[in-house]
């Protein structure tokens, strides 16, 4: 049970082009587990699912601008209020395993509260690389391996490729990012994996079915999965009406 509450933005941090972090105090979030998400409401704009990128006395979300609500979130300032419900969903559990994180761009958000050994993070180019976050993770003794498609920062190539390459050194891989990335990892890795999926979310609490994938609900049975049948994963999602559509189309 988690009623909606309004929280005040304590801090707004610009991360890289189109990405910010917002921090706030919220009792339920302070007790969340890594990988859980919240539903963030901006009156007149809408409500969207966002992973908690910080969990603690100050919790936070790290948001990339993609559409209406995220755009409005990027425009907020310290002192503004957002509506929040959750945390919802299941969570990563890595215990003391030597863990490799693989993030595609903003997919780094749910991995940030984890005690990773190594993080591979891929973006198109340097200006999409959240450098402050990388430094912060390094200062937490995480080895960070950035990779860009154009080679403008770190290695050149794809996060999935680099992740697969070095995965032998780890007990466990955790991943979040575009579904192609996750699908590619899942298909090619011979290692335990926990990956965080995205689907259109409405209720966020397992009732409406709009986040359904292969008989699971991303909001309530996920967002973290370790195995999935491969009927819809990587191929289909559901639109706002509940219709199954190929993954490339807009929601």
């Amino acid at each position, binding site marked *: *049970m*988690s*009623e*909606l*509450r*309004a929280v005040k933005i304590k801090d707004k941090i610009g991360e890289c082009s189109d990405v910010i972090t917002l921090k706030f105090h919220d009792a339920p979030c302070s007790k969340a587990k890594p990988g859980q998400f919240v*539903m963030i*409401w901006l*009156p*007149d704009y*809408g*409500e*969207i699912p966002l992973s908690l990128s910080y969990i603690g006395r100050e919790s936070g979300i790290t948001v990339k601008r993609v559409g209406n609500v995220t755009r409005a979130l990027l425009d907020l300032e310290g002192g503004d*209020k957002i*509506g929040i*419900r959750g945390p919802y969903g299941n969570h990563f559990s890595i215990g003391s395993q030597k863990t490799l994180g693989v993030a595609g761009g903003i997919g780094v958000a749910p991995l940030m509260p984890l005690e990773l050994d190594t993080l591979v993070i891929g973006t198109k180019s340097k200006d999409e690389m959240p450098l402050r976050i990388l430094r912060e993770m390094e200062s937490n003794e995480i080895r960070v391996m950035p990779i860009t498609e154009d080679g403008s920062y770190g290695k050149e190539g794809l996060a999935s490729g680099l992740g697969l390459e070095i995965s032998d050194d780890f007990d466990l891989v955790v991943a979040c990012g575009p579904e192609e990335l996750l699908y590619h990892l899942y298909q090619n890795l011979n290692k335990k994996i926990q990956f965080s999926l995205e689907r259109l*979310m*409405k*209720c*966020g*609490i*397992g*009732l*409406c*079915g*709009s986040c*359904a994938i*292969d*008989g699971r*609900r991303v909001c309530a049975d996920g967002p973290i999965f370790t195995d999935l049948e491969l009927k819809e994963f990587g191929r289909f999602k*559901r*639109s*706002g*009406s*509940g*219709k199954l559509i190929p993954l490339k189309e807009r929601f």
Partner: protein
Amino acid sequence: MADLGVGICGIKLRNPFILSSGVLGIARELMERVGEAGAGAVVTKSIGREERTGYKNPTLVELEHGILNAMGLPNPGVDNFRDELSEISVPIIGSVIAEPGCEEVAGKLEPNVKAIELNLSCPHVKGAGADISREMPIAVDLIKSIKGKVALPLLVKLGFNSSLELGKKSLDAGADAIVAMNTIRAMAINIEMRKPVLSNKLGGYSGPAVKPIGVGMVYELYQIAGDKTIIGCGGITNWRDAIEYMMAGASAVQIGSGIFYRGIEIFKELGDGVEKFLDDEGFRDIGEIVGLAHE
């Protein structure tokens, strides 16, 4: 051990615990899963002729004692939806939005479902559901046109705002059962934001808070239903709730928000709890408790 099997309008169900409309019944694999979890039957999301995206988020919010939603009847439209229904092993009841032409929707669902449920009562969509039920003659026409088109049993789902009179008229018009009840018109305002939370502002209230209202409605309907069937719905989260509805007069019950409170496992919990109660109290067949509170 007491027998939980029931016959609802001639359809045999292994137990009286039915997934209510709008909850999970939009995706094939989820319906299948609810069947595997033990549900006696599954009602689909309410389906219309055309695809509808529904309202924008927030479409649902948890409240202290229940759940408030205004999804806006999102559904893929009957032509897209039919495919979701093929080869599901649990009995499916097809919910149909009360709108002009809904008999065609019912007709298209017919091959894949065991019964039709007419949603006369969505409390927050203009021109559909509850809005129509205020227009009693229109509701009666819709019922007659569906009965004229499909040979399946027809359940009519009412809201609390629907009068007993609408229940009576629906049965007289040919409905085989009444489902009572849908969500109740309500609102939540966040006082810091100074706004209604739902994008549609008004929504429908469900969950534990509404149970006594639903039980009262079933009790009153039972008294006018004659030999027709009443199906209870609203706030059922445990086996005691299910029995309360059945003693009020429900031959079966539907569970919606309970999926949030107890998980999909709720169907097993209901079965185990009700069976134990029946055994302890010396009932042999669940049918014996239907309407018992009227004696």
